[in-house]
């Protein structure tokens, strides 16, 4: 009797663990795409993660696109645009006969509804609002014309409008669903329709048969073009290659370099490295904290770093060495920074000796007035940074610099450490095609000025570069900015980012947009399994 009661209790427990898998309708042209982070949200206007862009680039169109190869601005939902003489009014002529996935007609009012949503403080946009810069108002001229009005000239606006974060969503759907619920019911005009989003599990999109307004860079659709895409999350980098090999995913991004090297030798897979424009992997140097307040120390730290060794060992040679504050694939990159701080131990030692450092107590670490030459490095856990700092620690020791590593497990704790201000170096970086990413980081008043550097000349150049619409003038201003940043040795650049993607050879024609993170899946074809 007692025994049965125990059994019964156990029975309740086990009944709680039952699990039923949902059955979904399938097509032989279904693609499984591995995402690398489980995202907190995928509303393009609200959230800021790159994963949402991987999915939603296929669901939405933007007013303009950037050509994947030339990186020029090309028509999207806007067929043409003009910029007023003073740079304050952008006039967009809109494409006609475009419909959203819910049948709503696309027009100037639809664009207005989206701008309104992004600009509304209630939306609490994490990225989209920043991309619109000093946009203050808009004006619907007619059904197919809209003016965007700025409070000051801001040439990165077009770049902002080409990004998926400013995607144009159906005004009907935006109205129908609350700010929080919209992400589960997204409606765009793009080549794929949004089917479902199950947090932590999957996002599914399906081919939009009515799509006829694609940008010019897409090829005509092949017979075996992919019809349905299911995105799945693979948070743990170590499991990503295994998921590809076991067929759980057909495409995977952010592979570990060693895994990518192995897959490259496997005839069943193709590795597609995508260069990421914007900032390289780098360490900001805090100019407000000794000893990195001393220019000679900052320069010596760069000279004493053997980047070749790091890129070879940690990144398996997949990444170009970084020399300046912008990756080489970024527009307006200044190639003048190359080799300026080439690995040179003598130079590092000379600089440190010149600054008065010597090893007076013979412990292998230099000192000045009794204080050892010690730099504190905040080390995030991602992007193989811990492996990199291992190398830095060893390399710097050989010139008598001691590195104290301050590991942080997540972004919140990184921000806390930065806030304390007691660091000498911190690794962080932002991506993007427009060098305007530099502004918030190097302007004296920048919201994320982690070098603590303040210089009116640099301020003027950066502000001018954002205001100026002439590309050659922008090139000059950003070129000089990059030069100043490196003359002042404000960062230790390590390597340009390369997203290591790989896909199974049952799919082909995978390519990436010029931001590097976001695939263009319109033309991807698939050979169905038998």
């Amino acid at each position, binding site marked *: 009797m*007692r025994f049965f*009661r*125990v059994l019964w*209790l156990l029975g309740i*427990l*086990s009944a*709680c*663990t039952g*699990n039923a898998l949902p059955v979904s309708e399938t097509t032989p042209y279904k693609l499984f795409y591995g995402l690398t982070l*489980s995202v*907190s*949200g995928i509303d393009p206007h609200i959230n*800021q993660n790159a994963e949402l862009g991987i999915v939603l680039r296929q669901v939405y169109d933007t007013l303009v696109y950037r050509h994947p190869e030339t990186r020029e601005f090309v028509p999207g939902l806007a067929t043409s645009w003009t910029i007023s003489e003073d740079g304050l009014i952008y006039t967009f002529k809109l494409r006609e006969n475009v419909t959203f996935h819910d049948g709503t007609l696309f027009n100037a009012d639809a664009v207005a509804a989206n701008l309104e949503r992004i600009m509304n*403080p209630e939306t*609490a946009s*994490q*990225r989209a*609002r*920043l991309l619109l810069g000093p946009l203050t108002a808009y004006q619907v001229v007619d059904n197919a014309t809209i003016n965007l009005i700025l409070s000051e000239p801001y040439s990165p606006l077009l770049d902002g409008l080409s990004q998926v974060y400013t995607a144009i969503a159906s005004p009907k759907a935006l109205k129908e669903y609350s*700010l*929080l619920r919209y992400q589960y019911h997204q409606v765009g005009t793009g080549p794929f329709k949004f089917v479902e989003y199950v*947090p*932590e*599990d999957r996002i599914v999109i399906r081919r939009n048969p009515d799509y006829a307004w694609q940008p010019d860079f897409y090829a005509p659709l092949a017979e075996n073009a992919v019809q349905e895409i299911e995105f799945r999350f*693979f*948070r*743990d980098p*170590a*499991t990503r290659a*295994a*998921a590809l*090999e*076991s067929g*759980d995913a057909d495409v995977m991004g952010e592979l570990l370099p060693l895994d990518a090297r192995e897959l490259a030798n496997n005839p069943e897979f193709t590795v597609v490295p995508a260069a990421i424009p914007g900032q390289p992997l780098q360490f900001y140097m805090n100019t407000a904290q000794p000893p990195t307040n001393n220019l000679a120390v900052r320069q010596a730290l760069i000279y004493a770093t053997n980047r070749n060794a790091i890129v070879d060992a940690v990144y398996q040679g997949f990444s170009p060495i970084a020399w300046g504050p912008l990756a080489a694939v970024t527009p307006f990159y200044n190639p003048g920074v190359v080799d300026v701080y080439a690995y040179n131990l003598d130079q590092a030692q000379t600089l440190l000796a010149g600054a008065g450092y010597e090893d007076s107590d013979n412990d292998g670490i230099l000192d000045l007035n009794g204080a050892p030459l010690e730099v504190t490095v905040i080390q995030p856990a991602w992007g193989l940074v811990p492996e990199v700092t291992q190398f830095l620690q060893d390399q710097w020791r050989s010139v008598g610099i001691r590195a104290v590593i301050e590991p942080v*497990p*997540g*972004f*919140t*704790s990184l*921000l*806390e450490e930065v*806030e304390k201000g007691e660091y000498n170096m911190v690794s962080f970086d932002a991506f993007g095609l427009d060098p305007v990413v530099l502004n*918030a980081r190097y302007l004296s008043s920048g*919201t*994320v000025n982690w070098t603590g550097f303040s210089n009116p000349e640099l301020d003027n150049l950066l502000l001018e570069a954002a205001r100026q619409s002439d590309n050659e003038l922008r090139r000059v201003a950003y070129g000089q900015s990059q030069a100043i940043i490196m003359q002042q040795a404000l960062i230790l650049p390590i390597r340009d980012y390369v997203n290591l993607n790989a896909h199974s050879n049952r799919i082909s024609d995978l390519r990436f947009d010029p931001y590097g993170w976001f695939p263009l899946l319109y033309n991807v074809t698939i050979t169905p399994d038998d």
Partner: protein
Amino acid sequence: MINILRFAASAVLTLWLAASLTFVALRLLPGDAIQAQYWEASAELQATLRQNLHWDEPIGVQYARFLLALLRGELGVSLYTGRPVTEILAERFLPTTELAFWSLSIAVVWGILGGIIAAIDITVISAIFRLIIGLAVSVPIYWTGTLVIFVVAIHLGGVRENSALPALVLGFHTGGVIARSVQSNIQDIKQADFVRTAHAKGLFPSYIVVQHILRVSLLPVVHMIALQAGFLLSGAVITESLFQRAGIGLLLLDAVQGRDYPVVQGVVLMIATVFILLNRFAELLTHQLDPRLNS
């Protein structure tokens, strides 16, 4: 009736303590979820967002607001996803229950058998089992977990799909504690007078073990097993993060790292509730099995 009332009162008190301690601990941690998501935005926007969450009010007022919401049964929404905490908990509850159930099953079988074998002295085998039990008790879970992932990933691949592995790892450690207690119980009782009497009566040794020793020595183990819930839950945090299983443990870890106050609160309250219920369950179960306790 009085028993139930007493239980309810102590349960409420425990929950209140858990909620309050978490409330204080979270606010002592530096950094917050707004900063983590809007770090590039202007200070004004950050201030507005904090204001919307009433974080500009005195801490006492915030605490009162929090308790009132709790009384109404409101756990709030995640500061990251905006989803109701109850919805998130419901979603994450199953994987963890599943993990806990299988781990506990493995732990009970291996703990009891292992403990018996280790205790009854069959020379080398018992010594080996004592060693393994020692490992299970003293080696941290993440060590075994990493080792298992390493070995399996190299030889089999597909660690993520394999849901038996985390249960095995967690079950191994949980079972260690059970085995240790079974072992020492048996060893104690082996010295007891009635066992000596049984031997003196000339009873067959294996009959003595099963009928006399095991019956008595396994009783306290039942309570012990139910109490392993706490170990299982803390073990789940580590196991789930190692094996990247989207359960309560990983949820708690992510929420603490991201300072997602409502989610942390929700998980803590849920764990506390489960803990209280399991304790009660263990009590009832021991009373069922051992009528002596009812008198």
